[in-house]
Every structure is written in structure tokens, then in C-alpha cells.
């Protein structure tokens, strides 16, 4: 997919560090590179604190970057100023996890959805604005009556639909979805995931879908990247990643998902990791995963593995999974 078309988004050796004090630096995102093709859904999975939210925000320019580059349709996102920056903001939007905190409690649903329309001067009259808001809400499966309600009057699933309507109001091409379903109940999660899938089909949206729920990511994404302590450790087409994971961390992660099939118990297939996640503070010596890796070798403790193509389209950062093996 990526080889056929020019990527819509290109992330090159992106780093986002936070300086904690004079001596300590937290490497939230460390040397991450990938591309997303137009119309593609790229899933990013990882456990809490792995840097996946920071990655999403840095890509959109909501965080400054420490080094590296983000190219959107060939243009440098972080170098854009003025009108160009505004244009980018219209083309790329974000949907956040907690729709309760991300919607202004004092604004009505109608005002929230219309905010972007006004900021980008997309509508010229009040009538046009109201019409667009109604159509958006209906497309999200919400009655236009919701226009006059406030966020607290809605359920979690309804609020998440409002969050998506707000993002889509300015007709973006690219959406970063940061844990958009993790606060929702199982049956509602399925509704929202279906909504994303149909939006992609109808509008040709490109999605960066960040989540910790590996099953939902699998369902929705074309390709999936695995983030561990700020670094991308594996990236592959979805079916490949889930059927033939190469990185020991990906394997451990996949083996820990409880299955709804009671005849496939975790105890029989699980790869246990030793120890807790180590700190992302300071420069890593060797592979980030080495302290917990069941297959660790002296080389791993000493040299950081590069992200290399182990088979066509399947990238992995592990000395043991390198193609020379």
C-alpha cells in the first residue's frame, strides 16, 4: 500500500524529549519513523507510558519536537507558520480519549461542533452553519435535537460521537485518534469502531489510531506499529503482525490478551515478562526491551537494534529477528 502511492504523512526520526531537570531527560518518543498512505489506517499499540499519545500530539504539532521531521503531504508540519499552519490544522484533526474532559462543559453540542467551522471561516451564514451541524450529527447517528444539549446530558458513547463530529466538521483528510474507545463499554466500542470504518470508506479519511486494545486495533487497522518505551519496535501489515510477530515484546503482548474462547486459556500460551517496565529516563544502552526480554543476548544489552525490514513490509527492531539470521 505504501509503496504504491505517495504517503500522506511521513514521520522521520522523530524525537520528543522532556527535560526533567539539569541531568535527567525523559525520552517520550525516541527516533520513530513511519509513513501513512492516503486512505490508510495505521494502528499504534503500546502500554501506558510508552509514548503513544505524545507521538500523536507531536505529529499534529501540538507538541514541539526535539529533533526529526513530520511531513504532511510533503510539507514540514513544524516549520509551517501563519496561513500554512492554519491550513494544516484544518486538514489534520484529533479525537481524544476522554470526551468528558475534551468537550467544554459550558458550550452546547451545537456550539462545540460549529467551533471549527467558524474558526476556519468555512460557513458564511448562521443558516449554513446550523445545516452543517445537523448533517454532521446525523451522520454520527445522533439526532439534530442534541444541538441544544450540554455534554453532561449525553452518554459516553454519544459524547465520543460529538468529539468525532467536531473533528470532522472542518472536513479533514487526516485524523489522529488517541484512545477513542477505551473509556466506552464493549457494545458501544463496537459502534464507534464501525463508525470509523465507514467514515474511512465514505470520506477516504486517513487515520492514525492509537490504542492499547489490541483486538480493536487489529479489527480496524491496515498496518499496526508497536511502541515500547518511546521506540517503534515492530511495524507490519495487520494480519502479518498478529499471525507472525517477530519482536519478543510484540509476542508477549499478543500472548497476554485474554481470549473470549474459554478453551484458549492464557496459562497455556502466555509469554511472561520478567520485571517491571524500566524507566525511559536517560539514554538507553542497548535494546530498550533487553532488561525484560526472555531471549536477551550480550549484544542486546550493548547495542541498540535498528528498525530493519525482516521481510517485505515487515519492520522489526530486534537483533534476533534480523533477516541475516
Amino acid at each position, binding site marked *: 500500500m505504501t509503496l504504491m502511492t505517495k504517503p500522506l504523512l511521513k514521520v522521520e526520526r522523530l524525537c520528543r524529549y522532556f527535560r526533567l531537570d539539569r541531568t535527567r531527560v525523559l525520552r517520550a518518543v525516541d527516533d520513530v519513523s513511519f509513513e501513512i498512505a492516503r486512505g490508510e489506517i495505521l494502528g499504534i499499540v503500546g502500554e501506558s507510558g510508552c509514548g503513544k499519545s505524545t507521538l500523536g500530539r507531536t505529529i499534529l504539532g501540538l507538541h514541539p519536537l526535539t529533533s526529526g521531521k513530520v511531513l504532511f503531504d510533503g510539507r514540514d508540519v513544524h516549520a509551517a507558520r501563519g496561513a500554512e499552519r492554519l491550513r494544516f490544522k484544518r486538514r489534520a484533526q484529533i479525537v481524544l480519549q476522554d470526551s468528558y474532559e475534551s468537550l467544554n462543559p459550558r458550550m452546547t453540542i451545537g456550539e462545540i461542533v460549529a467551533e471549527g467551522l467558524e474558526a476556519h471561516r468555512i460557513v458564511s451564514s448562521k443558516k449554513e452553519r446550523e445545516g452543517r451541524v445537523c448533517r454532521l450529527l446525523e451522520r454520527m447517528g445522533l439526532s439534530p435535537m442534541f444541538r441544544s444539549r450540554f455534554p453532561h446530558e449525553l452518554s459516553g458513547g454519544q459524547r465520543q460521537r460529538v468529539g468525532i463530529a467536531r473533528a470532522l466538521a472542518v472536513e479533514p483528510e487526516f485524523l489522529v485518534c488517541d484512545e477513542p474507545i477505551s473509556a466506552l463499554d464493549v457494545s458501544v466500542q463496537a*459502534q464507534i469502531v464501525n463508525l470509523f470504518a465507514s467514515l474511512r470508506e465514505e470520506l477516504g479519511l486517513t487515520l492514525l489510531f492509537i490504542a492499547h486494545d489490541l483486538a480493536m486495533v487489529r479489527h480496524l487497522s491496515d498496518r499496526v506499529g508497536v511502541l515500547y518505551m518511546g521506540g517503534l519496535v515492530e511495524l507490519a501489515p495487520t494480519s502479518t503482525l498478529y499471525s507472525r510477530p517477530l519482536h519478543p515484546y510484540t509476542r508477549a503482548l499478543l500472548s497476554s490478551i*485474554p481470549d473470549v474462547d*474459554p478453551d484458549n486459556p492464557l496459562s497455556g500460551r502466555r509469554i511472561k515478562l520478567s520485571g517491571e517496565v524500566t524507566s525511559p529516563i536517560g539514554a538507553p544502552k542497548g535494546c530498550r526491551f533487553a532488561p525484560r526480554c526472555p531471549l536477551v543476548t550480550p549484544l542486546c544489552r550493548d547495542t541498540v537494534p535498528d528498525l530493519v525490514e525482516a521481510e517485505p513490509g515487515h519492520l522489526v527492531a530486534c537483533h534476533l529477528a534480523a533477516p541475516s539470521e
Partner: protein
Amino acid sequence: MTMERALLSVRDLNVFLQSDDGPLHVVRNVSFDLSRGETLVTVGESGCGKSMTARALMRLLPETGDVPETSRILCLGRDVMRLSEREMQSVRGQEMAMIFQDPSSSLNPTLTVGDQVEESLRLHTPLPKAERRGRALEMLRAVGLSNPELRMNQYPHELSGGMRQRVLIAGALICTPRILLADEPTTALDVTTQADILDLIRDLQRRFDLAVLLITHDLGVAAEAGDRIQVMYAGEIVESAPKRELFRAPAHPYTRALLRSVPRPGEGARLQALAGTPPTLKLSQGGVRCPFAPRCDSGMPICARAAPPEFHVPSAGGGEHRVRCWLRHPQGPEGVEGRNGLS
């Protein structure tokens, strides 16, 4: 449903709560037994009453909570409803202990790990301090906390989420209760840590001969941890069955819909989502019809007119399988006599 062998027996439990919108009936005629050494899982979505059920068992309801006299909770043969608050305190911790979803807010940030783990011993036993410390250390080791001597003197903020949940479990089990109520114990944790904690609960269950009531919204966790599963919807237990039976042959349309909404490998692009939202639990509603009727894909006219009683489902693998659904009326479409539908 024999009452003798059960450690915990619940009959017709009802819980009412006062809210800003008026009185709510959050737990509705819930009955179940928990036997020695077994894990019973309550599955349901947010607001279905699963946590309030567990809190009622411990008599830890919010201040506005009310349990009518007709509700019966027998814990090791004692009627929990009739105990004084003082007697209840000895039940909590020594007979029945509870752990919660968020280990950070259940631990006191100003006390060291050691102090919190030994707290129950201080309240319930005359053991001297040195002995209490020894037991606490032993317990921290039992829950697999690394470097327990060091952890004893640390504060909760110095520990990861997984470690905090281990500390909470150690504190809950230190007075060797027979029953552990675990309310979403892994929901706030990462998937690898979740698997560790589920392992730990299973291991401790064997070692301490515990009966576990596990509450979760995650069907995967239920499949992993449970012996029996009961599904709650709108304050009621709508289906209960041995684990395999429930996953292989779910009888309630809600259970079926929940199972369908979980993504599985190799399926098409669309998940089969359940439309709509659960009903509110306002007092006036309920009783007159099946609470799931408005969302049900196999509803019949009767469903909107009368609440279904509980029916037995013939079970393939043995064990009791019960469901509250008119489809399973002996003469209903899926009933044992399997004739025409009810009108």
C-alpha cells in the same frame, strides 16, 4: 441452588440509591451462591449494578444506599443484613475481603506499604507489632512483590500500578478471609500486568482455598478467570451458566450481542454492534417489561408487556444454566417444548 455448601448465599438482593434524578433501583432481585474454591464472574457494562451488588455484600454502599429487609445475604451461615456494624467489621477482612479497580485511590498515600498491609491485623488481632510486620512481609512475598523488605517502607506513589494492586491484594488477604470480592481488579492495568494479576488471583485462590467473586466488563477476563459466569443487565442477572456453556451456547439475546461485539480474528469489516443504550435504573421503570426489550433483536410482543421470570436451560456440559428471557419459556421459540412463539 442448595444453600448448605455455599460460603456466600444471596437471595432477592435489592439495592436502592438516591440520585439527583430521583430514586434508582440499581440491583433487582439478585440471587446467587458462591461455593468454596470457585470463581464466579459477574459480567456487565457500566451502570448495570455489578459493583453495587458487591458493595451491598460488604455493606459498603454509598450513604444514600438502601437494602430492603427482604434481601438476604448469608456469609458462612451468618445473616449479614442483621449484623451490627461492629460485628460487620469483623466479617470484613476476616471472612470477606474486597479489592477495587483503582489501586491508587484505594491505598492511603500517607502510609507506608507495610502499615497498610498490616492494618487489618492491627484492627482484628492482638498480635504484637513485630509479629504483624512478619506476617505482612510474608504476605507481600506471597503476592509476588519483588524486594518486599524494601517495599515495606515505601509509599504507594513509589510503586507501579501492578505493584499497587499486589499490595492491595496482600492487605485484603492478610486476615485469611474465605471470600474475595474483586471489583474490576485489572481494568486500570496494562494487558501484560493484567495477565500477571489474573495469574496471581488464581494462584492465591488455590493456596488460601478462596472463593472469588470477580466483577468485570471484559468478556476475555471472564473467560480466562471464571468457573461460572453471570451476566448482569439493568440491575438484574439475566443469565448464569458454567463458563464453557455460556460461551458455547449463550441463551440470552444480550449475552449473544455482547459476545458478537468483541472483535475476533478473521471476521469481516463490520462488528455486530448492539444498538442503543441501557435503560436508566429509575425506580418507576422495570418489572413491567423485559429491560432489554427495546434493544433486543429477537423480541416478541410479550417482552414489552411482562418481565420474564427465570427459566432453566438444558445444559450440555452439566451445571446449572438459567436465563431471564421469554424465548426460553417451555413453550417459547427456544423452550424445551419448542412449539410456537408466545403471543
